[in-house]
């Protein structure tokens, strides 16, 4: 018997054994595993995560070691000293791409992670307790929503431009991450609040309360698992959005700051060389950015389908 057949039989057996115990998450997971596009997207993302974690695996060159005599070499193919060529300052492109992935993706993950946390906590509090807590939180959501994310980022980052924060991995993304988080949590809070309002009056929640469960337990054990699924589908798309925003900020020189490298900085440096006959300076970083964003969007789309029971 081949592995695939064995897997199918095992699937069928487990399905027959537990027809009633399939949760929404398990269901969503099954749907996701069957779609080839999701698998490809996940593979691409996994690849870039490995690049973020261990850039040294992919290149032995030092991205900051640049020889101006070797500037603007064209791609030489794998095996040569500079497989992807060098940029206008003679830095190795492959090394820059590998080390530049870290700030770009780390920034996006940190921003979305922290804003999700803030959004979930505030949305849960507002939806569960209502009253003055809700008034306060809803009002702040409204205030922050009035200033679009990008405008706020431009304003604050140009205000804090001269503040020096050091050059560690987290230090280079500290300022953009803080600002983008500050203006990025409202969407999650609104979604969570709305679904908490819906979920908290369900019978089983009332039952849990009657049985004497504490507020905290009801919130995190009973209300939140029900309220979180529409937000989960937003996460990949938001990560993609932040990666794009980083590129814009880099173009203006207020995002991740040189000498640190990010894909955004590489795009903004490479853009002017295209008409000069060196399109690879733009196309390599842009290609990496598009591949990442596309995989995230595909994943988000699949998640939205898998988690929305109405579409089944």
């Amino acid at each position: 018997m081949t592995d695939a057949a064995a897997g199918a039989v095992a699937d069928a057996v487990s399905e027959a054994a537990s027809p009633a115990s399939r949760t929404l998450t398990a269901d969503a997971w099954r749907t996701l595993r069957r779609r080839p596009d999701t698998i490809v997207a996940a593979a691409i993302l996994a690849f870039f995560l490995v690049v973020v974690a261990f850039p040294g695996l992919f290149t032995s060159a030092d991205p900051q070691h640049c020889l101006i005599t070797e500037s603007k070499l064209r791609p030489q193919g794998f095996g040569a000293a500079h497989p992807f060529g060098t940029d206008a300052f003679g830095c190795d492109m492959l090394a820059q791409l590998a080390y530049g992935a870290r700030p770009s993706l780390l920034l996006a993950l940190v921003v979305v992670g922290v804003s999700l946390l803030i959004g979930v906590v505030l949305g849960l509090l507002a939806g569960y307790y209502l009253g003055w807590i809700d008034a306060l939180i809803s009002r702040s959501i409204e205030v922050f929503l009035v200033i679009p994310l990008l405008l706020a980022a431009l304003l604050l980052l140009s205000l804090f431009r001269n503040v020096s924060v050091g050059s560690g991995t987290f230090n280079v993304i500290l300022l953009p991450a803080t600002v983008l988080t500050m203006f990025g949590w409202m969407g999650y809070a609104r979604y969570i609040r709305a679904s908490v309002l819906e979920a908290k009056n369900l019978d089983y929640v009332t039952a849990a309360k009657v049985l004497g469960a504490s507020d905290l337990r009801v919130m995190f054990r009973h209300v939140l698992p029900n309220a979180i699924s529409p937000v989960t589908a937003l996460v990949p798309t938001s990560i993609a959005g932040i990666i794009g925003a980083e590129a814009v900020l880099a173009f203006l020189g207020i995002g991740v700051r040189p000498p640190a490298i990010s894909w955004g900085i590489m795009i903004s440096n490479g853009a002017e060389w295209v008409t000069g006959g060196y399109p690879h300076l733009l196309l390599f970083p842009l290609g990496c950015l598009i591949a990442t964003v596309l995989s995230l969007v595909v994943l988000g789309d699949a998640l939205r389908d898998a988690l929305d029971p109405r579409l089944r």
Partner: protein
Amino acid sequence: MGRYIARRCLQAVLTLFLVVFALHLLTTLAIQLNGNPALAFFGDRVPSASQLAAVEARYGLDDPCFDQPGNPCLGPFVDRVSAYLHGDFGTNLRGRDVTDIVATAAPNTLRLFCIVTITWLVLGMTLGSVAARWRGRAVDHGIRLTSVLIDAFPVFVLLVVYRYVFSVPLSDWAEDRFGRGSLPAMWFRPSFDSDHPWATLLVPGILLGLAGSAAFIRLVRASQLESYSGEHVRTARAKGLPERHVITHHVVRNSSVPVVTAVGLTFADALGGAVITEGLMNIYGMGGVLWEAVRASDVSLVVGVVTILAIVTVVVMIVVDIAYAALDPRIRYD
């Protein structure tokens, strides 16, 4: 309805006040941490103490609270709000009024928004309707794939590729083919030309509209699918109306309310997109002014423009809410 509008406006005034206060707090904190923005006025030169004091007085930075981190600077806040109420949003580093700059730049942004809105509506209505009409068929899947692809190319990427890769060859080709100064040659110009605003705004506007149209396609599809399964459509079909009539009169018309209001709601996102578009394509609009101000570290211009844009956003949100209440009789506010 009248009371609803009045309440909504009062709420909006409160929100605006809080927004201005939040912006003030952030600016103050930045000045306290960052050092004196008046120094930016002098660039690389080192000013004498009296020159510095004169510039500080001119930009309202002479209050001692700006030297004490953590002080909310309520005195300058009151001054600032009263200046805003008199229509004074400060000046840029060269002493030109922000209101004056915005007034000359706003028409181009409005033109851009016209093109963007038309692109959204045309793409969204056509593709969304087609997808809903033939739900589950190949064309539906194709449109869905298209909208995922559109989502995957942020407006920034589209514009960078267009400006740096396609614009120059395209405009060379158009000049050869149609002659210098002809209309097609204008369309593909890599930069804005104030003598031909519509022609040079067309392509950037379409690209910006394209980038935001995926959400519209999904929205139109979802709201038309809801209409298709509605009872009024079943009735219309049951009484023998031709399918064409059912679609135009009962499906498309009924499902356009959320679409109209979505145009308003995506306004805030479009403002961000407009900043990117105008900045990258050198368009002299509000976003372009902001982009240049950020590049030149002209903080007072950035604060002024962002405040004005925040006010515009609040007004647009009120208009959307009122339009929603007026268009959809099922929604009652009291």
